[in-house]
Protein backbone atom coordinates (compact mmCIF):
# COMPACT_ATOMS: atom_id res chain seq x y z
CA UNK A 1 0.00 0.00 0.00
CA UNK A 2 2.91 2.35 0.68
CA UNK A 3 3.68 3.24 -2.95
CA UNK A 4 0.00 4.05 -3.52
CA UNK A 5 -0.18 6.37 -0.52
CA UNK A 6 3.04 8.04 -1.52
CA UNK A 7 1.62 8.89 -4.91
CA UNK A 8 -1.95 9.65 -3.92
CA UNK A 9 -1.27 12.30 -1.29
CA UNK A 10 0.96 14.61 -3.40
CA UNK A 11 -1.33 14.20 -6.39
CA UNK A 12 -4.36 15.23 -4.32
CA UNK A 13 -2.46 18.19 -2.87
CA UNK A 14 -1.38 19.37 -6.34
CA UNK A 15 -4.92 19.13 -7.69
CA UNK A 16 -6.30 21.10 -4.76
CA UNK A 17 -3.60 23.73 -5.15
CA UNK A 18 -4.39 24.01 -8.86
CA UNK A 19 -8.04 24.59 -8.00
CA UNK A 20 -7.29 27.68 -5.92
CA UNK A 21 -8.55 30.88 -7.50
CA UNK A 22 -7.93 34.39 -6.26
CA UNK A 23 -11.14 35.86 -4.80
CA UNK A 24 -12.93 38.96 -6.04
CA UNK A 25 -13.52 38.18 -9.70
CA UNK A 26 -17.07 36.94 -9.24
CA UNK A 27 -18.37 39.93 -7.30
CA UNK A 28 -20.47 41.62 -9.97
CA UNK A 29 -24.15 42.30 -10.38
CA UNK A 30 -24.13 41.62 -14.10
CA UNK A 31 -26.04 38.58 -15.30
CA UNK A 32 -23.77 35.81 -16.51
CA UNK A 33 -24.86 34.80 -19.99
CA UNK A 34 -23.39 31.81 -21.81
CA UNK A 35 -24.23 31.45 -25.49
CA UNK A 36 -23.47 28.30 -27.44
CA UNK A 37 -22.35 30.31 -30.49
CA UNK A 38 -20.78 33.70 -31.09
CA UNK A 39 -23.90 34.82 -33.01
CA UNK A 40 -26.09 34.37 -29.96
CA UNK A 41 -23.35 35.88 -27.82
CA UNK A 42 -23.25 38.96 -30.03
CA UNK A 43 -27.03 39.40 -29.86
CA UNK A 44 -26.94 38.98 -26.07
CA UNK A 45 -24.30 41.72 -25.91
CA UNK A 46 -26.41 43.99 -28.13
CA UNK A 47 -29.42 43.70 -25.81
CA UNK A 48 -27.72 43.17 -22.46
CA UNK A 49 -25.05 45.88 -22.70
CA UNK A 50 -23.16 46.37 -19.46
CA UNK A 51 -25.80 44.52 -17.44
CA UNK A 52 -24.51 41.19 -18.72
CA UNK A 53 -21.22 39.37 -19.14
CA UNK A 54 -21.29 37.10 -22.16
CA UNK A 55 -19.23 34.00 -22.90
CA UNK A 56 -19.63 32.13 -26.19
CA UNK A 57 -18.68 28.46 -26.29
CA UNK A 58 -18.24 27.51 -29.97
CA UNK A 59 -16.02 29.80 -32.02
CA UNK A 60 -17.39 31.26 -35.23
CA UNK A 61 -14.73 29.50 -37.29
CA UNK A 62 -15.47 26.03 -36.02
CA UNK A 63 -18.18 23.66 -37.18
CA UNK A 64 -20.97 24.07 -34.59
CA UNK A 65 -21.94 20.41 -35.06
CA UNK A 66 -18.42 19.27 -34.10
CA UNK A 67 -17.81 20.89 -30.73
CA UNK A 68 -16.15 18.92 -27.95
CA UNK A 69 -18.04 19.04 -24.61
CA UNK A 70 -14.93 20.20 -22.78
CA UNK A 71 -14.97 20.37 -18.96
CA UNK A 72 -13.90 24.02 -19.24
CA UNK A 73 -17.35 24.63 -20.76
CA UNK A 74 -18.92 22.94 -17.72
CA UNK A 75 -17.16 25.52 -15.56
CA UNK A 76 -18.64 28.33 -17.68
CA UNK A 77 -22.22 27.11 -17.60
CA UNK A 78 -22.08 26.02 -13.97
CA UNK A 79 -22.09 29.70 -13.04
CA UNK A 80 -24.43 30.96 -15.76
CA UNK A 81 -27.66 32.81 -15.06
CA UNK A 82 -28.74 32.32 -18.65
CA UNK A 83 -27.75 29.72 -21.25
CA UNK A 84 -28.80 30.54 -24.81
CA UNK A 85 -28.78 27.71 -27.35
CA UNK A 86 -29.39 27.63 -31.10
CA UNK A 87 -31.61 24.56 -30.67
CA UNK A 88 -33.12 22.45 -33.50
CA UNK A 89 -30.57 19.77 -32.46
CA UNK A 90 -27.57 21.78 -33.69
CA UNK A 91 -25.85 21.21 -30.33
CA UNK A 92 -27.28 17.72 -29.67
CA UNK A 93 -23.83 16.14 -29.77
CA UNK A 94 -22.40 18.26 -26.98
CA UNK A 95 -24.76 20.57 -25.05
CA UNK A 96 -26.91 17.97 -23.19
CA UNK A 97 -23.75 16.43 -21.69
CA UNK A 98 -22.59 19.86 -20.50
CA UNK A 99 -25.97 20.74 -18.98
CA UNK A 100 -26.20 17.42 -17.14
CA UNK A 101 -22.77 17.96 -15.56
CA UNK A 102 -23.19 21.67 -14.80
CA UNK A 103 -24.74 21.38 -11.30
CA UNK A 104 -26.78 24.40 -12.32
CA UNK A 105 -30.55 23.91 -11.99
CA UNK A 106 -31.32 27.26 -13.64
CA UNK A 107 -29.96 26.36 -17.06
CA UNK A 108 -31.50 22.92 -17.46
CA UNK A 109 -34.09 22.53 -20.24
CA UNK A 110 -37.29 24.13 -18.94
CA UNK A 111 -35.41 26.13 -16.32
CA UNK A 112 -35.71 29.94 -16.06
CA UNK A 113 -32.13 30.33 -17.28
CA UNK A 114 -32.40 28.23 -20.45
CA UNK A 115 -33.39 29.91 -23.70
CA UNK A 116 -33.81 27.96 -26.92
CA UNK A 117 -33.39 30.80 -29.41
CA UNK A 118 -35.21 28.91 -32.16
CA UNK A 119 -38.66 29.07 -30.60
CA UNK A 120 -40.00 32.15 -32.41
CA UNK A 121 -37.92 32.29 -35.55
CA UNK A 122 -38.62 31.28 -39.13
CA UNK A 123 -37.28 27.77 -39.68
CA UNK A 124 -36.73 26.36 -43.16
CA UNK A 125 -36.32 22.80 -44.46
CA UNK A 126 -38.44 21.10 -41.80
CA UNK A 127 -38.55 17.56 -43.19
CA UNK A 128 -41.86 15.91 -43.85
CA UNK A 129 -42.53 12.21 -44.06
CA UNK A 130 -40.18 9.58 -42.73
CA UNK A 131 -36.66 10.69 -41.85
CA UNK A 132 -33.86 8.16 -42.13
CA UNK A 133 -30.09 8.30 -41.99
CA UNK A 134 -30.14 7.52 -45.70
CA UNK A 135 -30.84 11.25 -45.96
CA UNK A 136 -27.61 12.02 -44.09
CA UNK A 137 -27.46 13.93 -40.82
CA UNK A 138 -30.77 15.67 -41.39
CA UNK A 139 -32.08 17.76 -38.52
CA UNK A 140 -35.65 16.54 -37.90
CA UNK A 141 -36.69 19.92 -36.49
CA UNK A 142 -35.55 21.89 -39.52
CA UNK A 143 -32.40 23.66 -40.62
CA UNK A 144 -30.64 25.07 -37.55
CA UNK A 145 -28.65 27.74 -39.42
CA UNK A 146 -31.59 30.13 -39.11
CA UNK A 147 -29.62 33.04 -37.60
CA UNK A 148 -28.36 33.87 -41.10
CA UNK A 149 -31.53 35.83 -41.83
CA UNK A 150 -31.46 39.28 -40.18
CA UNK A 151 -35.22 39.03 -39.54
CA UNK A 152 -34.48 35.98 -37.40
CA UNK A 153 -31.65 37.89 -35.71
CA UNK A 154 -34.22 40.48 -34.70
CA UNK A 155 -36.54 37.77 -33.34
CA UNK A 156 -33.69 36.19 -31.35
CA UNK A 157 -32.83 39.61 -29.91
CA UNK A 158 -36.49 40.03 -28.87
CA UNK A 159 -36.45 36.66 -27.12
CA UNK A 160 -33.22 37.59 -25.32
CA UNK A 161 -34.69 40.96 -24.30
CA UNK A 162 -37.77 39.25 -22.87
CA UNK A 163 -35.77 36.63 -20.99
CA UNK A 164 -33.27 39.14 -19.57
CA UNK A 165 -36.23 41.22 -18.42
CA UNK A 166 -37.66 38.20 -16.60
CA UNK A 167 -34.34 37.56 -14.91
CA UNK A 168 -33.65 41.22 -14.05
CA UNK A 169 -37.01 43.07 -14.08
CA UNK A 170 -35.43 46.23 -12.65
CA UNK A 171 -33.44 46.61 -15.88
CA UNK A 172 -36.45 46.34 -18.21
CA UNK A 173 -36.21 49.92 -19.49
CA UNK A 174 -32.50 49.45 -20.16
CA UNK A 175 -33.01 46.24 -22.15
CA UNK A 176 -35.94 47.80 -24.05
CA UNK A 177 -33.81 50.77 -25.01
CA UNK A 178 -30.86 48.57 -26.04
CA UNK A 179 -33.14 46.39 -28.17
CA UNK A 180 -34.78 49.42 -29.82
CA UNK A 181 -31.36 50.81 -30.68
CA UNK A 182 -30.24 47.46 -32.15
CA UNK A 183 -33.48 47.13 -34.11
CA UNK A 184 -32.96 50.59 -35.62
CA UNK A 185 -29.35 49.89 -36.61
CA UNK A 186 -30.30 46.49 -38.03
CA UNK A 187 -33.13 47.99 -40.11
CA UNK A 188 -30.76 50.60 -41.56
CA UNK A 189 -28.20 47.90 -42.31
CA UNK A 190 -30.83 45.72 -44.01
CA UNK A 191 -31.62 48.55 -46.43
CA UNK A 192 -27.93 48.78 -47.24
CA UNK A 193 -27.58 45.01 -47.75
CA UNK A 194 -30.73 44.81 -49.88
CA UNK A 195 -29.45 47.56 -52.13
CA UNK A 196 -26.07 45.83 -52.52
CA UNK A 197 -27.62 42.46 -53.35
CA UNK A 198 -30.46 43.74 -55.55
CA UNK A 199 -28.63 43.26 -58.90
CA UNK A 200 -28.00 39.58 -58.17
CA UNK A 201 -31.52 38.37 -57.39
CA UNK A 202 -32.05 34.89 -58.82
CA UNK A 203 -28.33 34.17 -59.18
CA UNK A 204 -27.50 30.46 -58.93
CA UNK A 205 -24.83 29.33 -56.53
CA UNK A 206 -23.44 26.18 -54.92
CA UNK A 207 -22.75 25.81 -51.19
CA UNK A 208 -20.69 23.20 -49.37
CA UNK A 209 -23.11 22.39 -46.52
CA UNK A 210 -26.76 23.37 -46.07
CA UNK A 211 -25.79 26.32 -43.86
CA UNK A 212 -27.27 29.07 -46.00
CA UNK A 213 -30.98 28.55 -46.82
CA UNK A 214 -32.17 31.47 -44.67
CA UNK A 215 -29.45 33.77 -45.99
CA UNK A 216 -30.11 32.84 -49.62
CA UNK A 217 -33.86 33.17 -49.26
CA UNK A 218 -33.47 36.59 -47.63
CA UNK A 219 -31.37 37.91 -50.52
CA UNK A 220 -33.20 36.09 -53.32
CA UNK A 221 -30.39 33.75 -54.39
CA UNK A 222 -30.89 30.20 -55.65
CA UNK A 223 -28.83 27.30 -54.25
CA UNK A 224 -28.64 24.85 -57.15
CA UNK A 225 -26.43 22.23 -55.50
CA UNK A 226 -24.22 21.21 -52.60
CA UNK A 227 -20.65 19.91 -52.44
CA UNK A 228 -21.86 17.46 -49.77
CA UNK A 229 -24.28 14.98 -51.34
CA UNK A 230 -26.26 14.85 -48.10
CA UNK A 231 -25.72 16.71 -44.81
CA UNK A 232 -22.62 15.42 -43.02
CA UNK A 233 -21.77 12.87 -45.74
CA UNK A 234 -18.42 13.23 -47.53
CA UNK A 235 -18.75 13.65 -51.30
CA UNK A 236 -18.04 10.60 -53.49
CA UNK A 237 -16.48 11.26 -56.92
CA UNK A 238 -19.74 10.45 -58.76
CA UNK A 239 -21.51 13.25 -56.92
CA UNK A 240 -18.76 15.74 -57.78
CA UNK A 241 -18.95 14.78 -61.47
CA UNK A 242 -22.75 15.27 -61.41
CA UNK A 243 -22.36 18.61 -59.65
CA UNK A 244 -19.80 19.83 -62.20
CA UNK A 245 -22.21 18.87 -64.99
CA UNK A 246 -25.11 20.67 -63.36
CA UNK A 247 -23.03 23.79 -62.72
CA UNK A 248 -21.98 23.90 -66.37
CA UNK A 249 -25.59 23.52 -67.52
CA UNK A 250 -27.04 26.11 -65.13
CA UNK A 251 -24.19 28.60 -65.40
CA UNK A 252 -23.63 28.63 -61.61
CA UNK A 253 -20.02 29.61 -60.99
CA UNK A 254 -19.79 30.51 -57.34
CA UNK A 255 -19.13 27.94 -54.58
CA UNK A 256 -19.69 29.16 -51.01
CA UNK A 257 -17.62 27.38 -48.35
CA UNK A 258 -17.60 27.72 -44.57
CA UNK A 259 -14.16 28.40 -43.02
CA UNK A 260 -13.92 24.95 -41.42
CA UNK A 261 -14.03 22.90 -44.63
CA UNK A 262 -11.04 21.94 -46.72
CA UNK A 263 -10.94 23.98 -49.95
CA UNK A 264 -9.47 21.11 -51.98
CA UNK A 265 -12.70 19.67 -53.40
CA UNK A 266 -14.42 23.05 -53.98
CA UNK A 267 -11.30 24.38 -55.76
CA UNK A 268 -11.16 21.30 -57.94
CA UNK A 269 -14.82 21.84 -58.90
CA UNK A 270 -14.20 25.54 -59.54
CA UNK A 271 -11.22 24.83 -61.76
CA UNK A 272 -13.34 22.55 -63.95
CA UNK A 273 -16.30 24.91 -64.19
CA UNK A 274 -14.42 28.19 -64.53
CA UNK A 275 -15.95 29.12 -61.19
CA UNK A 276 -14.80 30.71 -58.01
CA UNK A 277 -14.59 29.52 -54.39
CA UNK A 278 -15.68 32.04 -51.78
CA UNK A 279 -15.20 31.51 -48.04
CA UNK A 280 -17.99 33.27 -46.18
CA UNK A 281 -18.47 33.56 -42.44
CA UNK A 282 -21.43 31.49 -41.26
CA UNK A 283 -21.10 33.00 -37.80
CA UNK A 284 -19.80 35.99 -35.92
CA UNK A 285 -16.08 35.38 -35.44
CA UNK A 286 -15.93 33.19 -38.58
CA UNK A 287 -13.52 35.74 -40.06
CA UNK A 288 -11.76 38.51 -38.19
CA UNK A 289 -13.90 41.24 -39.79
CA UNK A 290 -17.18 39.71 -38.50
CA UNK A 291 -16.89 40.98 -34.95
CA UNK A 292 -20.61 41.33 -34.28
CA UNK A 293 -23.96 40.33 -35.76
CA UNK A 294 -24.31 43.33 -38.08
CA UNK A 295 -20.67 43.20 -39.18
CA UNK A 296 -21.18 39.49 -40.02
CA UNK A 297 -23.71 40.47 -42.71
CA UNK A 298 -21.63 43.49 -43.74
CA UNK A 299 -18.77 41.11 -44.50
CA UNK A 300 -20.77 38.33 -46.15
CA UNK A 301 -22.89 40.68 -48.28
CA UNK A 302 -19.93 42.70 -49.53
CA UNK A 303 -17.86 39.58 -50.30
CA UNK A 304 -20.76 37.85 -52.01
CA UNK A 305 -21.74 40.90 -54.08
CA UNK A 306 -18.17 41.40 -55.17
CA UNK A 307 -17.80 37.71 -56.18
CA UNK A 308 -21.14 37.69 -57.99
CA UNK A 309 -20.09 40.82 -59.83
CA UNK A 310 -16.96 39.06 -61.05
CA UNK A 311 -18.65 35.79 -62.01
CA UNK A 312 -21.81 37.26 -63.52
CA UNK A 313 -20.35 40.44 -64.97
CA UNK A 314 -23.22 42.53 -63.52
Amino acid at each position, binding site marked *: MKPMKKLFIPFFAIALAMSYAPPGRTATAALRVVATTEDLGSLANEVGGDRVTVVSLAKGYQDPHQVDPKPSFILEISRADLLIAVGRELEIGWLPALQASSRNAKIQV*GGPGFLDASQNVRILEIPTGQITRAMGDVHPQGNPHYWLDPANGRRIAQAIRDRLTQLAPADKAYFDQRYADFDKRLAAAEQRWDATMAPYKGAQIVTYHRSWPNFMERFGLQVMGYVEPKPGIPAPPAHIIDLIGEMKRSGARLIIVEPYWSLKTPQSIASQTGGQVLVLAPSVGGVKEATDYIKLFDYDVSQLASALKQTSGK
Partner: protein
Amino acid sequence: MQLTEAEASFQAIVDPYAKADFFLSAGPDGVEVEEGYITFTSLPKNLLLKVGKMRAQFGKVNTLHTHQMPTVDRPLVTENLVGGEEGLSDAGMSLSYLLHNPVIFVEATGEVYTGDSDVFQSNERSKLNYVGRLRAYRDITESSNIDVGTSFAFGPTDVGLDETTPGEGIEAPVLDKRLFGIDATFRYRPLRRAIYQRLNLRTELIWSRQELPADLHANSFGMYALGEYQFARRWYFGARYDRSARTLDDTLTDTGGSLFLTFWPTEFSQIRGQYRYTSYAEGITGNEFLFQFNFSIGAHGAHIF
Protein backbone atom coordinates in the same frame (compact mmCIF):
# COMPACT_ATOMS: atom_id res chain seq x y z
CA MET B 1 -16.78 -13.46 -36.86
CA GLN B 2 -19.38 -12.62 -34.26
CA LEU B 3 -21.75 -9.89 -33.23
CA THR B 4 -19.85 -8.87 -30.13
CA GLU B 5 -22.39 -6.43 -28.91
CA ALA B 6 -25.50 -4.56 -29.95
CA GLU B 7 -26.22 -1.66 -27.69
CA ALA B 8 -29.46 0.27 -27.40
CA SER B 9 -29.32 3.59 -25.62
CA PHE B 10 -32.21 5.56 -24.18
CA GLN B 11 -31.53 8.97 -22.77
CA ALA B 12 -34.21 11.37 -21.65
CA ILE B 13 -34.99 14.14 -19.24
CA VAL B 14 -37.13 12.72 -16.42
CA ASP B 15 -38.30 15.99 -14.87
CA PRO B 16 -36.76 19.40 -14.16
CA TYR B 17 -34.46 17.74 -11.64
CA ALA B 18 -33.28 14.54 -13.23
CA LYS B 19 -32.10 12.80 -16.39
CA ALA B 20 -32.16 9.09 -17.14
CA ASP B 21 -29.64 7.09 -19.18
CA PHE B 22 -30.14 3.46 -20.12
CA PHE B 23 -27.79 1.32 -22.20
CA LEU B 24 -28.94 -2.21 -22.96
CA SER B 25 -26.43 -4.49 -24.57
CA ALA B 26 -27.07 -7.74 -26.36
CA GLY B 27 -24.17 -10.07 -26.99
CA PRO B 28 -23.37 -13.77 -27.24
CA ASP B 29 -24.13 -14.13 -23.50
CA GLY B 30 -27.60 -12.60 -23.73
CA VAL B 31 -29.16 -9.24 -23.05
CA GLU B 32 -28.19 -7.19 -20.06
CA VAL B 33 -28.42 -3.68 -18.71
CA GLU B 34 -24.92 -2.38 -19.36
CA GLU B 35 -25.75 0.85 -17.60
CA GLY B 36 -29.02 2.23 -16.27
CA TYR B 37 -28.96 5.21 -13.98
CA ILE B 38 -30.68 8.41 -13.06
CA THR B 39 -28.68 11.62 -12.70
CA PHE B 40 -29.94 14.31 -10.33
CA THR B 41 -28.87 17.50 -12.06
CA SER B 42 -30.29 20.09 -9.69
CA LEU B 43 -28.70 19.33 -6.34
CA PRO B 44 -27.32 22.18 -4.25
CA LYS B 45 -23.67 22.74 -3.36
CA ASN B 46 -22.26 21.78 -6.78
CA LEU B 47 -23.16 18.15 -6.28
CA LEU B 48 -24.19 15.64 -8.91
CA LEU B 49 -25.73 12.33 -7.89
CA LYS B 50 -26.10 9.22 -10.02
CA VAL B 51 -28.00 6.19 -8.83
CA GLY B 52 -28.30 2.88 -10.66
CA LYS B 53 -26.06 0.49 -12.50
CA MET B 54 -23.07 2.16 -14.09
CA ARG B 55 -19.46 1.87 -15.07
CA ALA B 56 -17.39 3.18 -12.16
CA GLN B 57 -15.33 6.33 -12.47
CA PHE B 58 -12.08 4.47 -12.23
CA GLY B 59 -9.65 5.90 -14.77
CA LYS B 60 -10.64 6.44 -18.39
CA VAL B 61 -11.01 3.08 -20.14
CA ASN B 62 -13.33 1.71 -17.47
CA THR B 63 -15.91 4.41 -18.22
CA LEU B 64 -16.01 3.66 -21.96
CA HIS B 65 -18.48 1.37 -23.70
CA THR B 66 -17.03 -1.05 -26.26
CA HIS B 67 -18.02 1.07 -29.26
CA GLN B 68 -16.41 4.17 -27.75
CA MET B 69 -12.98 2.56 -27.52
CA PRO B 70 -10.34 3.70 -30.02
CA THR B 71 -9.26 0.06 -30.37
CA VAL B 72 -11.03 -3.27 -30.99
CA ASP B 73 -9.91 -4.62 -27.62
CA ARG B 74 -9.20 -3.19 -24.20
CA PRO B 75 -5.66 -2.69 -22.89
CA LEU B 76 -3.84 -5.61 -21.28
CA VAL B 77 -3.89 -3.87 -17.90
CA THR B 78 -7.71 -3.71 -18.06
CA GLU B 79 -7.87 -7.41 -18.91
CA ASN B 80 -5.42 -8.40 -16.15
CA LEU B 81 -6.32 -6.06 -13.29
CA VAL B 82 -9.63 -4.23 -13.90
CA GLY B 83 -12.14 -6.84 -15.00
CA GLY B 84 -11.69 -6.84 -18.78
CA GLU B 85 -14.63 -6.07 -21.04
CA GLU B 86 -17.22 -5.72 -18.28
CA GLY B 87 -14.77 -3.96 -15.97
CA LEU B 88 -15.78 -2.22 -12.81
CA SER B 89 -19.51 -1.95 -13.52
CA ASP B 90 -22.04 -2.41 -10.76
CA ALA B 91 -25.17 -1.12 -9.05
CA GLY B 92 -24.56 1.73 -6.67
CA MET B 93 -24.39 5.46 -6.12
CA SER B 94 -22.00 8.09 -7.36
CA LEU B 95 -21.71 11.54 -5.84
CA SER B 96 -19.41 14.09 -7.43
CA TYR B 97 -18.47 17.59 -6.44
CA LEU B 98 -17.32 20.37 -8.73
CA LEU B 99 -14.79 22.71 -7.15
CA HIS B 100 -16.06 26.06 -8.39
CA ASN B 101 -13.35 28.33 -9.63
CA PRO B 102 -12.65 30.19 -12.85
CA VAL B 103 -9.20 28.72 -13.43
CA ILE B 104 -9.37 24.95 -13.69
CA PHE B 105 -11.96 22.20 -13.74
CA VAL B 106 -11.58 19.97 -10.67
CA GLU B 107 -14.09 17.26 -9.87
CA ALA B 108 -14.02 14.91 -6.88
CA THR B 109 -16.15 11.78 -7.08
CA GLY B 110 -17.04 9.23 -4.41
CA GLU B 111 -18.88 6.03 -5.29
CA VAL B 112 -20.18 3.00 -3.48
CA TYR B 113 -21.22 -0.23 -5.18
CA THR B 114 -22.80 -3.47 -4.04
CA GLY B 115 -19.68 -5.48 -4.82
CA ASP B 116 -20.97 -7.52 -7.73
CA SER B 117 -18.72 -6.86 -10.69
CA ASP B 118 -15.95 -8.63 -12.57
CA VAL B 119 -13.46 -6.93 -10.25
CA PHE B 120 -15.14 -7.07 -6.82
CA GLN B 121 -17.47 -9.76 -5.52
CA SER B 122 -18.95 -10.63 -2.16
CA ASN B 123 -21.94 -12.50 -0.80
CA GLU B 124 -21.84 -10.43 2.36
CA ARG B 125 -24.09 -7.38 2.11
CA SER B 126 -21.88 -5.37 4.43
CA LYS B 127 -18.89 -5.82 2.14
CA LEU B 128 -19.19 -2.99 -0.33
CA ASN B 129 -16.95 -1.68 -3.07
CA TYR B 130 -15.78 1.94 -2.78
CA VAL B 131 -14.39 4.07 -5.61
CA GLY B 132 -12.91 7.55 -5.45
CA ARG B 133 -11.68 9.76 -8.23
CA LEU B 134 -10.17 13.20 -8.53
CA ARG B 135 -10.03 14.73 -11.99
CA ALA B 136 -8.40 17.98 -13.11
CA TYR B 137 -8.76 19.45 -16.59
CA ARG B 138 -7.45 22.58 -18.19
CA ASP B 139 -7.39 24.07 -21.67
CA ILE B 140 -3.84 24.80 -22.77
CA THR B 141 -4.96 26.66 -25.89
CA GLU B 142 -8.34 26.71 -27.63
CA SER B 143 -7.21 23.61 -29.53
CA SER B 144 -5.33 21.62 -26.88
CA ASN B 145 -5.98 20.51 -23.36
CA ILE B 146 -4.69 18.31 -20.58
CA ASP B 147 -6.83 16.01 -18.48
CA VAL B 148 -5.36 14.20 -15.46
CA GLY B 149 -6.93 12.03 -12.83
CA THR B 150 -6.26 9.71 -9.98
CA SER B 151 -8.56 6.90 -8.93
CA PHE B 152 -8.85 4.51 -6.03
CA ALA B 153 -11.00 1.41 -5.59
CA PHE B 154 -11.35 -0.87 -2.61
CA GLY B 155 -13.52 -3.90 -2.09
CA PRO B 156 -13.90 -7.62 -1.51
CA THR B 157 -13.06 -10.38 -3.97
CA ASP B 158 -13.68 -14.09 -4.10
CA VAL B 159 -10.59 -14.87 -6.15
CA GLY B 160 -8.81 -17.97 -5.12
CA LEU B 161 -12.19 -19.52 -4.31
CA ASP B 162 -11.34 -22.74 -6.08
CA GLU B 163 -8.04 -23.16 -4.26
CA THR B 164 -9.43 -22.36 -0.82
CA THR B 165 -12.68 -24.31 -0.85
CA PRO B 166 -11.70 -27.88 -0.37
CA GLY B 167 -15.25 -29.11 0.20
CA GLU B 168 -18.91 -28.24 0.16
CA GLY B 169 -20.21 -26.08 2.97
CA ILE B 170 -16.96 -24.37 3.76
CA GLU B 171 -17.27 -20.66 3.23
CA ALA B 172 -14.67 -19.13 1.00
CA PRO B 173 -12.64 -16.35 2.57
CA VAL B 174 -13.34 -12.82 1.40
CA LEU B 175 -10.12 -11.27 0.22
CA ASP B 176 -9.73 -7.53 -0.19
CA LYS B 177 -8.45 -5.89 -3.31
CA ARG B 178 -7.24 -2.33 -3.74
CA LEU B 179 -6.68 -0.55 -7.00
CA PHE B 180 -4.94 2.74 -7.50
CA GLY B 181 -4.67 4.48 -10.83
CA ILE B 182 -3.25 7.57 -12.45
CA ASP B 183 -4.35 8.69 -15.90
CA ALA B 184 -3.29 11.52 -18.15
CA THR B 185 -4.70 12.60 -21.51
CA PHE B 186 -3.45 15.23 -23.91
CA ARG B 187 -5.76 16.25 -26.75
CA TYR B 188 -5.07 18.43 -29.75
CA ARG B 189 -7.83 19.35 -32.19
CA PRO B 190 -7.39 22.55 -34.18
CA LEU B 191 -10.81 24.23 -34.19
CA ARG B 192 -10.64 25.42 -37.81
CA ARG B 193 -9.79 21.91 -38.96
CA ALA B 194 -11.68 19.90 -36.31
CA ILE B 195 -13.29 17.79 -39.05
CA TYR B 196 -9.91 16.66 -40.41
CA GLN B 197 -7.32 16.51 -37.70
CA ARG B 198 -6.94 15.48 -34.09
CA LEU B 199 -4.41 13.87 -31.80
CA ASN B 200 -5.10 12.05 -28.53
CA LEU B 201 -2.32 10.81 -26.27
CA ARG B 202 -3.31 8.86 -23.20
CA THR B 203 -1.71 6.76 -20.51
CA GLU B 204 -3.06 4.95 -17.47
CA LEU B 205 -0.93 3.47 -14.72
CA ILE B 206 -2.64 1.02 -12.38
CA TRP B 207 -1.42 -0.63 -9.21
CA SER B 208 -3.33 -3.56 -7.75
CA ARG B 209 -2.89 -5.06 -4.30
CA GLN B 210 -4.73 -8.34 -4.01
CA GLU B 211 -5.00 -10.16 -0.70
CA LEU B 212 -4.29 -13.85 -1.04
CA PRO B 213 -4.93 -16.74 1.34
CA ALA B 214 -2.34 -17.42 4.05
CA ASP B 215 -1.76 -13.70 4.60
CA LEU B 216 0.01 -13.26 1.28
CA HIS B 217 -0.38 -10.36 -1.19
CA ALA B 218 0.10 -9.82 -4.86
CA ASN B 219 1.26 -6.27 -5.71
CA SER B 220 0.78 -6.00 -9.44
CA PHE B 221 1.45 -3.06 -11.73
CA GLY B 222 0.15 -2.47 -15.22
CA MET B 223 -0.04 0.36 -17.72
CA TYR B 224 -0.74 1.31 -21.26
CA ALA B 225 0.22 4.28 -23.40
CA LEU B 226 -1.86 5.06 -26.47
CA GLY B 227 -1.64 7.58 -29.27
CA GLU B 228 -4.29 8.15 -31.92
CA TYR B 229 -4.00 10.57 -34.80
CA GLN B 230 -6.67 11.58 -37.29
CA PHE B 231 -4.85 12.30 -40.52
CA ALA B 232 -7.80 12.78 -42.88
CA ARG B 233 -11.51 13.35 -42.55
CA ARG B 234 -12.30 9.65 -42.41
CA TRP B 235 -9.02 8.08 -41.26
CA TYR B 236 -7.47 7.50 -37.84
CA PHE B 237 -4.21 5.72 -37.08
CA GLY B 238 -2.93 4.73 -33.66
CA ALA B 239 -0.55 2.68 -31.58
CA ARG B 240 -0.63 1.31 -28.05
CA TYR B 241 1.98 -0.13 -25.72
CA ASP B 242 0.79 -2.58 -23.04
CA ARG B 243 2.39 -4.01 -19.95
CA SER B 244 0.74 -5.66 -16.97
CA ALA B 245 1.40 -8.16 -14.21
CA ARG B 246 -1.36 -10.59 -13.24
CA THR B 247 -3.78 -9.93 -10.40
CA LEU B 248 -2.96 -13.13 -8.50
CA ASP B 249 0.70 -13.44 -9.37
CA ASP B 250 2.82 -10.30 -9.53
CA THR B 251 5.81 -12.24 -10.78
CA LEU B 252 4.10 -12.90 -14.11
CA THR B 253 4.14 -9.88 -16.41
CA ASP B 254 2.62 -9.80 -19.89
CA THR B 255 3.66 -7.19 -22.43
CA GLY B 256 2.34 -6.25 -25.83
CA GLY B 257 1.68 -3.66 -28.44
CA SER B 258 -0.93 -2.79 -31.08
CA LEU B 259 -1.25 -0.79 -34.26
CA PHE B 260 -4.73 0.17 -35.39
CA LEU B 261 -6.38 1.92 -38.28
CA THR B 262 -9.96 3.17 -38.36
CA PHE B 263 -11.97 4.25 -41.37
CA TRP B 264 -15.17 6.23 -40.82
CA PRO B 265 -17.35 6.07 -43.97
CA THR B 266 -19.64 8.59 -42.21
CA GLU B 267 -19.82 9.68 -38.60
CA PHE B 268 -22.37 6.90 -38.01
CA SER B 269 -20.21 3.93 -38.89
CA GLN B 270 -16.60 2.85 -38.57
CA ILE B 271 -14.45 -0.02 -39.77
CA ARG B 272 -11.38 -0.84 -37.72
CA GLY B 273 -8.43 -3.16 -38.09
CA GLN B 274 -5.89 -3.87 -35.37
CA TYR B 275 -2.66 -5.82 -35.26
CA ARG B 276 -1.90 -7.01 -31.73
CA TYR B 277 1.31 -8.53 -30.47
CA THR B 278 1.33 -10.03 -26.99
CA SER B 279 4.20 -11.64 -25.11
CA TYR B 280 2.78 -13.65 -22.25
CA ALA B 281 4.79 -14.24 -19.08
CA GLU B 282 4.85 -17.98 -19.74
CA GLY B 283 6.93 -17.36 -22.86
CA ILE B 284 4.10 -17.69 -25.38
CA THR B 285 3.70 -14.94 -27.94
CA GLY B 286 0.54 -14.00 -29.79
CA ASN B 287 0.25 -12.25 -33.16
CA GLU B 288 -3.35 -11.38 -33.95
CA PHE B 289 -5.32 -9.35 -36.47
CA LEU B 290 -8.59 -8.02 -35.09
CA PHE B 291 -11.39 -6.46 -37.11
CA GLN B 292 -14.40 -4.52 -35.98
CA PHE B 293 -17.37 -2.90 -37.63
CA ASN B 294 -19.29 -0.35 -35.57
CA PHE B 295 -22.39 1.51 -36.56
CA SER B 296 -25.07 3.57 -34.87
CA ILE B 297 -28.67 4.19 -35.82
CA GLY B 298 -31.35 6.41 -34.38
CA ALA B 299 -31.02 9.77 -32.66
CA HIS B 300 -27.64 11.46 -32.70
CA GLY B 301 -26.06 10.79 -29.30
CA ALA B 302 -23.66 13.01 -27.43
CA HIS B 303 -19.99 12.71 -28.34
CA ILE B 304 -17.69 11.29 -25.72
CA PHE B 305 -15.00 13.49 -24.27
